[in-house]
């Protein structure tokens, strides 16, 4: 039974040119997302996860050095689209994004209703009245009262503003929404509320999510699948239940170990050293300098192995898994 893949990314690369050299922010990323599931991309700061989101949505800055690979949206190869086609057919039509600190980026001089309606007016050719109606519906979906259409951003609390930006991303009823650190600036209770909203949207609107975060604990609230990113590469993917129970990649294991748990008794661990710079990533496995299980083969870059539907980019699994690229 072939699962319906809403997104399939193959060998995606995004490099930036800076005064110090070329930053290899996204260095050959493969992953897939099935319909109506949420994948969480976890990684620490500087691992390239925000750049990955931008690469998928083709929101590129001016200093791009390399942008290559294949991005299949519903089996349609979008890399071939021109920028204009991409803008009219994909971005904010099929895919949308809630960027980091979006709640602070609301225009202070426009009413929130107008702002939320704007994408629909532009991308879906809706008239203003229809768009505002749609906005009200989305407000309901995210739990914001109707009359907030006429309010301004500064009148809303942080949690409300974040809900508004989520509503904005849903206006065209996209198939895929990318959320970049949606709750990192919010309090615990508000965070839980936002995730409740996301869970409901996933259930009622059938949206697929890519959630980008460094907060593993909270990510489990939404995750069906997990992808771990390190130094511009995806080092492990898998479904959430197997991942949280038993991660495979040494980095993922250490990462899970370093999460302080409220209810369990274990003492958390930490990882020594720091992640490599994306300017000059080391040859071979990028985690080798901090890996407790390092051995000679690690000086060569490991392939990605398939193990029962999960993938790991680590030599330790050479025997067990089948090579992903075969």
């Amino acid at each position, binding site marked *: 039974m072939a699962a319906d893949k809403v997104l399939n990314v193959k060998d995606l690369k995004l490099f930036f040119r800076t005064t110090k050299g070329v930053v290899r922010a996204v260095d050959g990323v493969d992953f897939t997302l099935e319909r109506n599931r*949420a994948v969480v991309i976890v990684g*620490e*700061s500087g691992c390239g996860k925000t750049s990955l989101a931008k690469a998928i949505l083709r929101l590129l800055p001016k200093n791009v050095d390399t942008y290559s690979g294949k991005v299949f949206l519903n089996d349609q190869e979008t890399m071939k689209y021109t920028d204009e086609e991409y803008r009219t057919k994909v971005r904010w039509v099929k895919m949308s994004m809630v960027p980091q600190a979006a709640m602070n980026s609301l225009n202070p001089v426009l009413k929130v209703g107008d702002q939320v309606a704007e994408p629909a007016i532009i991308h879906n050719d809706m008239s203003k009245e229809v768009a505002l109606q749609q906005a009200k519906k989305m407000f309901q979906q995210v*739990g914001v009262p109707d009359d907030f259409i006429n309010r301004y951003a500064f009148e809303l*609390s942080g*949690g*409300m503003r974040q809900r508004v930006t989520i509503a904005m991303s849903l206006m065209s009823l996209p198939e895929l929404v990318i959320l970049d650190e949606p709750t990192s600036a919010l*309090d*615990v*209770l*508000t*965070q*839980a*509320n936002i*995730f*409740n909203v996301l*869970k*409901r949207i996933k259930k009622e609107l059938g949206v697929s999510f890519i959630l980008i975060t*460094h*907060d*593993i*604990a*909270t*990510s*489990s*609230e*939404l*995750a*069906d699948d997990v992808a771990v990113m390190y130094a511009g590469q995806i080092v492990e993917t898998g*479904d*959430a*239940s197997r*991942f*949280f*129970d038993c991660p495979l990649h040494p980095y993922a294991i*250490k*990462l*899970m170990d*370093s*999460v*302080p*748990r*409220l*209810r*369990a008794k274990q*003492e*958390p*661990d*930490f*990882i*020594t050293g*720091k992640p490599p710079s994306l300017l000059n990533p080391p040859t071979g496995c990028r985690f080798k300098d901090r890996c407790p299980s390092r051995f000679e083969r690690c000086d060569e870059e490991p392939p990605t192995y398939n193990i029962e539907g999960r993938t790991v980019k680590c030599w330790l699994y050479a025997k067990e898994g089948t090579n992903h690229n075969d």
Partner: protein
Amino acid sequence: MTDTTQEKSQTIMTHDDDLKKRRENSLLSVQNLKVWFELRRLGFGTTGYVHAVDGVNFDLDYRETIAIVGESGCGKTTLMKSILALYQPTEGEIYFEGNPLSELKGYQMRQYRSEIGYVQQDPYGALAPFMNIRRILEEPMIINGINSKQERKDRIFNALEEVKLTPPGDFLEKFPHMLSGGQQQRVVLARAMLLEPKMIVADEPVSMLDASVRVEILRLMESLQERHDLAVIYITHDLSTVRYFSERVFVMYAGQLIEKTLIEDVVHDPKHPYTKALMEATSDPDANNALHYRDVPPGEPPSLVNPPKGCRFHPRCPYKIEGLCEVEVPPYFKTKPDQYVACWLYKDA
């Protein structure tokens, strides 16, 4: 850590206890503290006050660690800054080793400041970007009259070794932007330790650091605390880190401490509905979380300009008792030897 907890239970006192006895027996005694900020409208009179801290009472003993947990806007930052004497109390008083802070002047105030180490949330912001590490670490000592260059040098070397920035010589000439977040925070810790303080106040010391580094810094703080017999006030919104670092936990909401309890009880036996909500909302990584909704109260923390009457949590509380909670402010009820809850649900405790 558990042994000292037993000892400490005698020092937690209720409101009724003699204020004098409290401040004589503890390192820090915060008594009926209120810190209000005036809202001025173009200089024509006052439109109201922000009741940032609205009646806080607690004592901190020597070598004790406590955590103050609360969401943003609950007043914990103001409370902390009042302890650091950066704000003046509107009412009430803070006593350090029996002396009221409001009566300290000039030299005495500097003396007080040298007894407290301050660890801030943003490690990069806490370090002057135009000073190198050596100068950053020398500043507190120069200000507090440690004039011998050799002694300053020795202290700096010791401090850097203690926070595991070794070899110290490598770091002295560097500037803050050359260090990673974790290293920066270590410098902040080193700076806090230089004057051999009795107490450390840490405001979200790890929330801006990467996950893999957080625990390292918390462990470091723990070892520093043990080795130097420090009292620590650890302020955070993240309950999951509190376990590894504190004996007692105070939960703060809308300017007041609504629950004071031991760390184990916060996790396994929270009493106040707000504390319960916090527990419910804090996730551990578990795939099952995605399968159900979390039962958390809706709404937002109240505005501190016009806080709700009675119990401030009542507009959001699922267990509200009609006619009581929205009218009268609940006092502390002692539900266990070391557990105090300001909630009418426990009025028979």
